[in-house]
């Protein structure tokens, strides 16, 4: 480490991940804003009853929006979590498992969430 270089290439922080993080961050803000407007300003009292939720999901655009939102939120949060963990400088082996683990968790969360959306839509 005398010369202070470490350029072994590994799947660490990269331009792509960073760009995606910023872009998804922007989209989340946008969708969250729409979500807040609908939930708290248009629907009086908020979506707190099961029946309200199901009814809300019958508008065709809502399930799509919710799924996209889910994808962006999950990937944004996991890429962010990974950034924090990368700052602890994990070894190559730990990083390999970390990458796999995060991909698995992310995919699982997205599949589970999508399934949930379709279940609710189906109850309509």
């Amino acid at each position, binding site marked *: 480490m005398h*010369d*202070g270089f470490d*350029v072994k290439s590994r799947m660490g922080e990269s*331009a792509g991940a*960073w*760009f995606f993080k910023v872009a998804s961050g922007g989209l989340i803000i946008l969708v969250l804003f729409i979500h807040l407007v609908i939930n708290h300003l248009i629907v009086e009292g908020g979506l707190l009853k099961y029946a309200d939720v199901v009814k809300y999901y019958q508008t065709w655009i809502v399930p799509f929006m919710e799924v996209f939102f889910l994808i962006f939120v999950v990937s944004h949060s996991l890429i962010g979590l990974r950034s924090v963990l990368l*700052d*602890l400088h994990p070894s190559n082996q730990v990083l390999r498992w970390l990458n796999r683990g995060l991909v698995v968790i992310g995919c699982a969360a997205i599949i589970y969430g999508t399934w949930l959306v379709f279940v609710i839509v189906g109850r309509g």
Partner: protein
Amino acid sequence: MVDLWHVTFEVFRQKDNQKSHFNFFELDINPDEYVLDGIERIWAFTDRTLVFSHACHHSTCGACGMLVNGVEKLTCITSIRDVTRDGGKIRIEPLRNFPIISDLSVDMSSLYSRMEAVGHQPILPIQEEDSKGKVKSEGDLLRLADCIECGLCISACPIALTTSNYIGPAVLAGAQQHGELTPCILELVNSENGAWRCHSAYECTEVCPSNVDPAWRIMELRRKIIANRFSSFFTRK
């Protein structure tokens, strides 16, 4: 004659990897003198074993960076009046995030080697772009670059706290200043340990004593890398 201030210097000491401790030195000193002058007085009159780095005493060499009351300062231009009061104390520690040679002196080899690798230009045309816009052109005159390789930004950076592999604000700023993204430089700054590690704490710009504005340069560098990646993506094949 100016009134002298009575100031206690709390100085970090460490020799040969032994356990570190603080020494207290009480000085009657003109508050318009600089912190480095106080340290040099301690060495000259009280404790000849004190190790500290310094050279130019006017902020052009970057050797005398230390933590003064916890904040990164170029001690040669930090006046005692600005960091304490009469009867007060000044806590002096070596820069963070560098290996300690002894006492207040740290080893900045990695910074210098990295600056070399990204091709930071020590001398450049007077017309040079900085965060406040271009300075007006002056024919073919040259001047010394702003970055004095003092390492304050690396000491202040929260990312450099946990990993020595992050190449650091000064070096990324150096790559931006170099201008051209050669394949070697690109590999360094576009790597895991390069420009994407920055988390916008702006501490580098906060402590920079020499008009470099490293945070701005890191953002510029990112823009340049993204542009470079886009163009190479479309020109490939």
